[in-house]
């Protein structure tokens, strides 16, 4: 019960910020995919920058644990291509679709229904994929610092510098 309340409160805050950032809209999502409006890229990268510093600080202090998913090249590469195709058609992603509905963009309903059907279809296909795509290129639970054999801050700090440079460039170009 406590976890359900945590989920609801976290969602309230997150949904509020998504709406304030104006990233829920179809026009913004398609704008990013068409490289015409980088609002979503700014929002996502800012979130990732703050998140990665905070989470790794807490990890260093032993207060939280990372949750790393296995890198399996087959399903990640094929799944990403398929997801991108669907995202371009729908114009909302799984999390933003419910937020878009909250903002009044009720075409998101059709997307939400489609995504429930898509999840059901995937559940049907899962046993077949377990024997095929999920055996292609399994690298296990790896991270960049681990693969490169460096401390995680050696990755985080240059990442932040690169993101800041990208932001300056985007603002200069008016994107």
């Amino acid at each position, binding site marked *: 019960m406590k976890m359900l309340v945590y989920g609801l409160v976290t969602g309230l805050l997150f949904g509020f910020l998504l*709406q304030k950032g104006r990233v829920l809209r179809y026009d913004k999502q398609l704008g990013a995919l068409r490289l015409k409006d980088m609002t979503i890229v*700014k929002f996502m990268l800012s979130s990732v920058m*703050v998140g990665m510093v905070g989470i790794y600080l807490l990890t260093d202090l032993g207060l939280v644990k990372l949750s790393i998913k296995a890198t399996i090249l087959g399903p990640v590469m094929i799944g990403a291509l398929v997801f991108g195709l669907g995202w371009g058609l729908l114009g909302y992603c799984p999390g933003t679709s419910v937020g878009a509905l909250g903002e009044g963009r009720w075409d998101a309903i059709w997307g939400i229904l489609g*995504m429930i059907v*898509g*999840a059901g279809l995937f*559940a049907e296909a899962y046993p077949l994929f377990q024997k095929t795509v999920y055996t292609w290129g399994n690298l296990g639970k790896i991270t960049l610092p681990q693969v490169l054999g460096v401390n995680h801050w050696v990755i985080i700090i240059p990442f932040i510098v690169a993101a800041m440079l990208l932001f300056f460039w985007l603002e200069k170009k008016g994107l």
Partner: protein
Amino acid sequence: MKKQNGGWSPYLAGALSGVVGILSVWVAGQYLGASTSFVRTAGLIEQFFGPERVAKMAYFIKVAPKIDWQWMFLVGIFLGALISAITSGSFKIQAVPDMWAKRFGRHSGVMRAGAAFAGGVIAMFGARMADG
């Protein structure tokens, strides 16, 4: 920080959402995510028609059909966006997005519904395959 469209700077809103993500992991041990809940919802609906079948399916054993933290997170996103939109006067009932209307016309609601539904099926299939 206000922009012409009445919203906040995406850098500010994005950074604050990062703080929400950190607090969620710290306080509740939960990383933000959304797509797993669509699997749980599909399972809950299918359970209604054939509980025995659902109980035997490998994917619904892996991702149990239930209302959990993430499911409520999505309910929260809906409500949070609704509150933000209404209190700032940016709530707008719209069935055909502006960019879509520019290309296909204002009265292409059926086509928009079809594309959104098909896009949803395809996007979720891909997302689940990549486990994200």
